[in-house]
């Protein structure tokens, strides 16, 4: 497993591509034209890069726009070799739903991709009943090549860490809007009061406000529960593309 094709949200493509390059894998791919543009261009990536049969594994890392995700996945499924596994982010759309978009759902393995989470040493994976065991094994060995452990979790919107993390950030944005304390104070309080590694406001900024909003929006949609309603401030900043630096 050497040639990796990556498609998706800019921040995630950048994070995964950098790590792949570090591990001496050959990466190429394309970024969605979302607002969170990468800070640097990566070799092998351009607007017109297309997947080919020569790839050993492909990654679809779109969380923000389900439409882009669907288009990307359909393109990958038709252009890649029929035996190439596709590791697809299943944070805002379940793997089960994605499986209905393509003719070869057996090659899909879900991954919990959210910007900043590759700082950690574990990657979440999920499957459906249709997932072929050998494709899952390929996905696991790819994760191992990245130097990470994996954890198999159920196919549920937000998976585990993105759901907990985005819900924390969402609550911080409710508190921020209600003037309970400033963003900086909320971050200080959570780091010193509960030993969190980062404050929820600064963490949301690292993840990307649009990403956090997309996860909350997907949870709200999937569960139909008021508890996942995106905080108005989060929605406002996500739609205006404002940098979180402004309220810190």
């Amino acid at each position, binding site marked *: 497993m050497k040639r990796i094709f990556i498609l998706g949200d800019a921040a995630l493509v950048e994070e995964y591509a950098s790590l792949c390059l570090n591990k001496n894998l050959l990466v190429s791919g394309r970024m969605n034209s979302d607002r969170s543009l990468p800070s640097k261009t990566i070799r092998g990536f351009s607007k017109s890069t297309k997947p080919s049969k020569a790839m050993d594994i492909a990654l679809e890392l779109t969380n923000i726009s389900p439409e882009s995700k669907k288009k990307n996945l359909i393109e990958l499924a038709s252009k890649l070799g029929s035996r190439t596994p596709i590791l697809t982010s299943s944070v805002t759309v379940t793997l089960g739903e994605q499986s209905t978009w393509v003719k070869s759902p057996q090659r899909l393995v879900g991954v919990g991709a959210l910007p900043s989470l590759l700082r*950690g040493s574990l990657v979440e994976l999920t499957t459906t009943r249709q997932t072929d065991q050998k494709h899952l094994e390929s996905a696991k060995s790819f994760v191992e090549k990245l130097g990470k452990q994996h*954890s198999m979790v159920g196919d549920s919107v937000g998976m*585990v*860490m993105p759901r907990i993390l985005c819900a924390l950030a969402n609550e911080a944005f409710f*508190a921020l809007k209600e003037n*309970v*304390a400033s963003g900086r104070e*909320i971050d200080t309080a*959570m780091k010193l*009061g509960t030993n969190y590694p980062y404050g929820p406001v600064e963490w949301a900024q690292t993840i990307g406000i649009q990403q956090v909003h997309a996860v909350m929006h997907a949870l709200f949609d999937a569960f139909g529960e008021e508890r996942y309603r995106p905080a108005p401030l989060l929605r406002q900043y996500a739609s205006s593309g404002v940098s979180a630096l402004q309220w810190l």
Partner: protein
Amino acid sequence: MIKTIGVIGAGTMGSGIAQTASTAGFEVILHDISADVLQSAMENIKQNLRMMVEKGKVGSAQATDALSRIHPRKNFTDMGSADFIIEAAVENLDIKHAIFKKLGPIVRSHVVLATNTSSLSVTSIATLTRTPESVVGMHFFNPPPLMKLVEVVRGKQTSDAALKTTTDLAVAMGKTHVVCRDTPGFVVNRVARPFYGEALRLLGEGVASVEEIDRIVKLEGGFKMGPFELMDLIGIDINYAVTKSVYEQFFHEPRFRPHPIQRQMVEAGTLGRKTKKGFYAYP
């Protein structure tokens, strides 16, 4: 100028606050209605200070001085000589109301009355005092000598002067403070709710097991402890009570709704480390 701090309640929080204040150089009058509680608080403080000396965190003479600055008093009227009061009694509004009402005729008029509440409204606690403008929240975290944070809570009627005195005192006690509005759970106990709430829902929905969720949160998220380990450490009953309190004070806002798993574990008496059984077993 604050020289003497009166601490009401000598439980875990009260004795920890007394130790923190005395180590920072303040005289402390530590009050409790129970002589036994006062005595065991003094023993605990003595032991904690000894451990700090062993670890080289304070000098031996410094520890002896700190201990000598704490004056255990069973008589409530002794609070009259304090320049600043920190109430750390149980989290019960009636009991706190009674204490603040009793403080009125005892303390001097400019003395700030701080309450170390974690989940009650500071504005509500202030209602029965003669001087609601001098009541402020001063939320220490457990254990107070080790945890750097103090949430300083501005009640609806808290004066700027009382707030300033309290934040200055927090600094003098070696703490980092954040000022927050008097809203349910303040910052930490509110913003932390989804950490437990979502973990419990993920468990309830069968997305992952207790062990896997904790492993993911630590290895992928970089948290020092997973939500279930942390609930076991805090006490599932305490965590459930805080969740319920925030939920009720927000008029049943669904984001704070407790989870049936929590209630069931409380009913079963599996409260975490303290009962040797919670989400994990502790033989």
